[in-house]
């Protein structure tokens, strides 16, 4: 394990260096927050991409999925993918500058990114201008693919699809248990992620005939969320719908507990709530919290590639794959497959191959129906799952056919 980690990190070191290796290497730029507030997620993403590129480039036993056979890009004479990482510091302007540098200086033929939707928005403007594909692995704001961009692709479901899944779950669990959720409280940070997420939730709550009893937009990374917790307590909704990153997710759980408030149900727009730091930081307070997810680590039966990929990832980063890292690995494999099918490292050829992508779900590690982009570049087959924390880990509770346990529904 040690040796493998060493090899991988040596590979990463070589990949970030400026010296070009063999001429046929295909350079892909990767923009994430590697320092600053989003660094925890960004560094996990870096590890995920390193594992994924190792799967594509390396020699190993075949993994039953897209690009799982290894040995580089077959149709480019076994060319290797070389990743160049750039640090956005979670700042949209720095993300823009770094994307530009990757394209012009590092000669990246495609860009992968970028965790937060705010940075994804600026990166995709740059890639559109330079006519290079941007593949959004984990940006989830619906507005991103609605801007008529030609070079934007997103494998991940977006927050509208995720949120639709949440309300479908509320309907299904209500019918099953006879306890329908009638009120919701929105709790979201003041960013493109928070406002897009809450806009969809407001709309779908209305469509589902549920009343929004609290609508709380809060300042991200504030020292205190005690007043916000008090507002949630006063509203006492059937379901709280938070859209927050890790630090705020930990803080709001503690702040609600501080004032003696245990919500009946919480359904998170993933993000910080899906991080292991959240589960560790909130501890027992996280029990029963639900979250949408695009990934189900426990769906190993229908997705045989999960176990081998997770083993590789765990050896490299000492933790299990999660909602974010699984989507990042999937994005890189999708891009590698498109480059391979294009048989060329020219951006236009890659774009056309991405447009033609049609991957069945069982060829991925995701519980999705598959990967197929519509005219706006959005994957239409990415179907979400709902999970609930039980015994300190997230377990899939919906769709019922993928569930590994009954949802603990206290509404």
């Amino acid at each position, binding site marked *: 394990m040690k040796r493998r980690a060493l090899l991988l990190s040596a590979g990463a070191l070589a990949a970030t260096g400026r010296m070009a290796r063999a001429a046929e290497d295909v350079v892909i730029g990767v923009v994430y927050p590697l320092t600053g507030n989003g*660094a925890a997620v960004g560094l996990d993403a870096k590890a995920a991409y390193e594992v994924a590129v190792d799967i594509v480039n390396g020699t190993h036993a075949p993994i039953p999925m897209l690009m799982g056979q290894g040995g580089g890009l077959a149709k480019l004479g076994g060319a290797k993918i070389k990743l160049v990482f750039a640090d956005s510091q979670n700042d949209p302007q720095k993300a823009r500058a770094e994307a530009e540098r990757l394209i012009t200086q590092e000669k990246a033929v495609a860009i992968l990114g970028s965790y937060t939707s705010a940075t994804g928005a600026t990166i995709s403007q740059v890639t559109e201008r330079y006519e290079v594909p941007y593949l959004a692995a984990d940006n989830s704001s619906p507005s991103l693919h609605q801007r008529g961009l030609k070079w934007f692709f997103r494998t991940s479901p977006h927050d509208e699809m995720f949120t639709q899944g949440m309300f479908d779950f509320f309907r299904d669990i209500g019918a099953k248990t006879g306890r329908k959720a009638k009120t919701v409280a929105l709790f979201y940070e*003041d960013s493109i992620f928070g406002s897009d997420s809450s806009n969809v939730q407001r709309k779908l709550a209305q469509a589902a005939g549920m009343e929004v009893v609290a609508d709380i937009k809060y*300042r991200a990374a504030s*020292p*205190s969320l005690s*007043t916000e917790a008090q507002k949630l307590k006063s509203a006492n909704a059937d379901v709280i719908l938070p859209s927050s990153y*890790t630090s705020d997710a930990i803080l709001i759980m*503690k702040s609600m*507990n501080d004032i*003696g408030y245990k919500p009946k149900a919480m359904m998170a727009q993933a993000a910080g709530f899906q991080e292991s730091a959240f589960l560790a930081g909130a501890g027992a307070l996280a029990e029963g919290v639900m979250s949408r997810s695009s990934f189900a680590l426990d769906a190993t039966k229908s997705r045989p590639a999960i176990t081998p990929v997770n083993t590789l990832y765990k050896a490299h980063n000492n933790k299990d794959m999660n909602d974010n890292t699984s989507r990042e690995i999937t994005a890189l494999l999708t891009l590698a497959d498109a480059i391979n099918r294009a048989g060329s490292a020219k951006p236009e050829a890659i774009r056309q191959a991405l447009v033609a992508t049609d991957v069945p779900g069982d060829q991925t590690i995701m519980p999705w129906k598959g990967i197929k982009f519509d005219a706006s570049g959005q994957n239409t087959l990415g179907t979400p799952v709902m999970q609930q924390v039980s015994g300190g880990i997230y377990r899939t509770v919906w769709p019922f056919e993928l569930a590994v346990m009954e949802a603990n529904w206290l509404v």
Partner: protein
Amino acid sequence: MPVAEILQVAAGGLLMGLIYALVAAGLSLIFGLMDVVNFAHGELMMLAMYAVFAIWQLTGADPLLLLPVVAVLLFGLGMAIYRGLIARALSVQFNRGMVQIFVTFGLAIFIRGAAQFVWGGEFRSVTGHWLADRSLNLGGVFLPLPQVAASLVCLAAFAGLLMVSRTEFGKALEATREDRDAVALIGIDRDRIFAMGWGLGAGAVGIAGVMLAGFYYVGPNVGASFAVIAYVTVALGGFGSMLGALVAGVLIGEVEAFTAALWEPSLKQVGVFAVYLLVLTFRPRGLFGKM
């Protein structure tokens, strides 16, 4: 709003405000003493939090028990920063003001980077100590025990700072603040006073960090959001005034809490800065600042 809710919001503001006050006290002390704004102040707090986390992880010791250890560590670190960096920055002949700013600013970035290098970018939490996640219920108004403990320690730290100011050393500190050149003539070792001032300032923010670690997440950037509030607190209370830091800290905690409660939570800092602007307009030296 029902009375219980108003009291709950006020309690939240007070408990947070006392933490703000102690963070600001250290900053104010150093500024008042030698006109140096320490931009790495939030990072010193972050280091104290990591120290608690690291020792707790190794030994399982309760954060409260670590209070004296970490306070002494931070005191030493503060003195070391003065001797190693600040004293040199003060001795330059050219553009001294800018050099001081860049030295502490650079130090802040260095400490943040070092923390990420050593502990990673992950958010950490100190869990399972004897006050963790427990609250006192006073007729519907809840007081979280880790924060109550933090507030009491903050008040004790202020009392301690007040007592220090009554001692011989405190008088030397005050004299150095008044006229840093004249004190040399009466045999006060100015360099030593400055170093002790940095030690006290870092120790104070260290105590705040220890208490904060009992109920707050730890990460390389945790100091940043507290530091911004600390700068406002110092300016509001008056540069160099301990009482000012205490009153201003509580005031800011309350303004923040009630802006969030009555208006929009996302705009709570607007309330804080509005009060700050008002004070600057009508009383530029701050509430308790000396001319």
